[in-house]
């Protein structure tokens, strides 16, 4: 379809600009770090008897750009490396390319994020419909307030409360790392069981902290659709309640799919707190780790990947919308 192709092209162009912007931010931050670690490293290598060329090369491998030359030269060098997917080499894990480290970490982020988000979406949407229909009763009020509260509580507070309750006061669930080290990694029951057990609290935290948002969004969406003319029209045509309910649900849930895609993208970066508290070696954990160990190439790479996830999520959300909403599909924006 040409419309999809046209939209996709526009998104890709904008996404590219965003990547460059983020890379530029990373560049200037690394360039402005107090104490100038790059120059220090360069000088150290020179003093250890390396030739200037070899030292330059070594620093470049570490940081992704040369320590000498004009700012512009350093900048183009850095961006050029990015375009070749060369994110440099990790300092804290000598010899490992940043890309590989990121890939390893992403594995630990994606599963809990996906599980928690989908779980909260399912529960939140169902309860949101209920909160909208019962919005004048005590129960509906309670649902909405619980939604606002859970939505309002910062993720790290929720995570800590869960740890305190389920790992300290009533120690029934582990809260330390992604898996028990006593098990051999692989497809055996012990390892997988431990993996699942360790994932319960992080997934519960994701789910609880996102749940409130879904309840509120679905509630307001359903309330809006309930006021639409076509619902009254269907009622006056004597449509069955079950069919009317389906009409409401489909129309109300449509805008939420966009938010779902966007939040999946944002969660990759938002996982920082949960991964830190539960000691999960995912992308957020890696970002903090790289900052604490002054691993600049890794930090830049993690930041870039997290932003790229948001951009991709944006594109997916838009294309998805184009596919499921007939109004967008036919290329005209009514309502």
């Amino acid at each position, binding site marked *: 379809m040409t419309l999809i192709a046209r939209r996709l092209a526009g998104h890709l162009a904008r996404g590219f600009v*965003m990547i460059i*912007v*983020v890379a530029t*931010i*990373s560049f200037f*931050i690394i360039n*402005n*770090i*107090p104490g100038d670690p790059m120059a220090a490293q360069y000088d150290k290598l020179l003093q250890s008897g390396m030739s200037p060329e070899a030292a330059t090369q070594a620093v470049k491998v570490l940081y992704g750009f040369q320590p000498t030359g004009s700012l512009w030269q350093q900048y183009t060098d850095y961006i050029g490396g990015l375009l070749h997917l060369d994110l440099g080499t990790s300092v804290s894990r000598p010899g490992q390319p940043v890309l590989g480290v990121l890939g390893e970490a992403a594995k630990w982020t994606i599963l809990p994020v996906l599980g928690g988000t989908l779980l909260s979406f399912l529960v939140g949407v169902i309860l949101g419909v209920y909160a909208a229909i019962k919005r*004048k009763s005590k129960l509906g009020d309670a649902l909405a*307030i619980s939604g*606002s*509260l859970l*939505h*309002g*509580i*910062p993720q*790290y*507070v929720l995570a*800590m*409360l869960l*740890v*305190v309750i389920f*790992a*300290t*006061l009533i120690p029934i669930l582990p*809260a330390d790392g992604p898996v028990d080290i006593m098990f051999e990694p692989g497809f055996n029951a012990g390892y997988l069981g431990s993996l699942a057990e360790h994932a319960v609290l992080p997934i519960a935290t994701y789910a609880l902290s996102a749940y409130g948002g879904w309840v509120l969004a679905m509630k*307001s969406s359903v*309330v*809006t659709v309930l*006021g639409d003319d076509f619902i009254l029209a269907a009622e006056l045509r004597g449509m069955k309640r079950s069919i009317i309910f389906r009409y409401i649900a489909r129309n109300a849930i449509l805008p939420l799919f966009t938010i779902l895609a966007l939040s999946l993208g*944002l969660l*990759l*970066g*938002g996982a*920082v*707190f949960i991964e*830190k*508290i539960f000691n999960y070696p995912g992308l*957020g954990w890696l*970002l*903090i780790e790289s*900052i*604490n160990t002054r691993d600049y190439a890794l*930090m830049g790479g*993690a*930041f870039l990947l*997290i*932003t790229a996830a*948001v*951009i991709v999520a*944006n594109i997916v959300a838009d294309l998805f919308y184009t596919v499921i909403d007939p109004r967008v599909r036919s290329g005209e924006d009514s309502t």
Partner: protein
Amino acid sequence: MSTVLIPETASAAATMRRNFWLGVWRVMKRKPSRLAGVIIIAGFAFMGAFGPMFYPDQLPDDSNAITQAPSWAHWFGTDPQGRDVLALVITGSRYVLLSAAVTAVITVVFGTTLGLFSGFKRGRWDSVLMRITDMKLTIPGLPLLLVLAMVWKFGSPIQMGLVLGLLGWGGVARAVRAQTLSLRERGFIEAARGLGLSTRHIIGKELLPSMAPYIAMNMLIAVTGAVYAQVGLFFLGVLPYEANNWGVMLNLAVFQAGAMITPNALGYLLGPLLAILLLTLGIVLVVDAMDEIFNPRLREE
């Protein structure tokens, strides 16, 4: 043929300003919980402003009472240096609230100015500004803050508020722009122009008062996010140690005192945690009330 002959009478919309405080009072009265929200926020403001005056600059430590569980003498127990947790929470509130205030001012000034400008001028300026806002909304805030923390140490609450404000005005700008455009669509601005009013008058006397509620609500949401972000940054330990700070308390409680393993240190963790929860509750209740005052759709029929 048929002619529309009866003019559809638009009921004269009552000006929001006149009925505003009346509406506020009605909404507050209907659900006392909302009044509680206002009281909680006021209480925190009071705590931040005057709380630290009741304590010496250097809180007394007691090496005989290190990391104690809550007791009558220490309601939330003591920290690993034997200091009273409640006193730490109260003195720590100033940093949080002061930076929140700075954030609030910046989001409002920046967001409103840019939103108004965008919605008023439209055209090229509008699309450029909105593109920038979009970009800002696309870059995930927390990771950006973490990365920024490498070069900027956020030494004072003012600096912290400044950075958070500069990162957080996007939402307010969008809301203000949307409002300006909708007022414009309703012929509001053209009508005022037709009456010979100056741009300054239109903005200051007509536009701003009618969207003050939206600005206030979005500001509150931005500020809430900023409070969480700054406590979170200290909690993650990417910023240098800062005395009397909720985030630092959380960090020390979890990663040094082992509050999540030893029940004795639980008070040290729960002190700041409950403070954040209470602040959240207050803000949620106030936003809920504002929502109903300004969003007629949600108002009960």
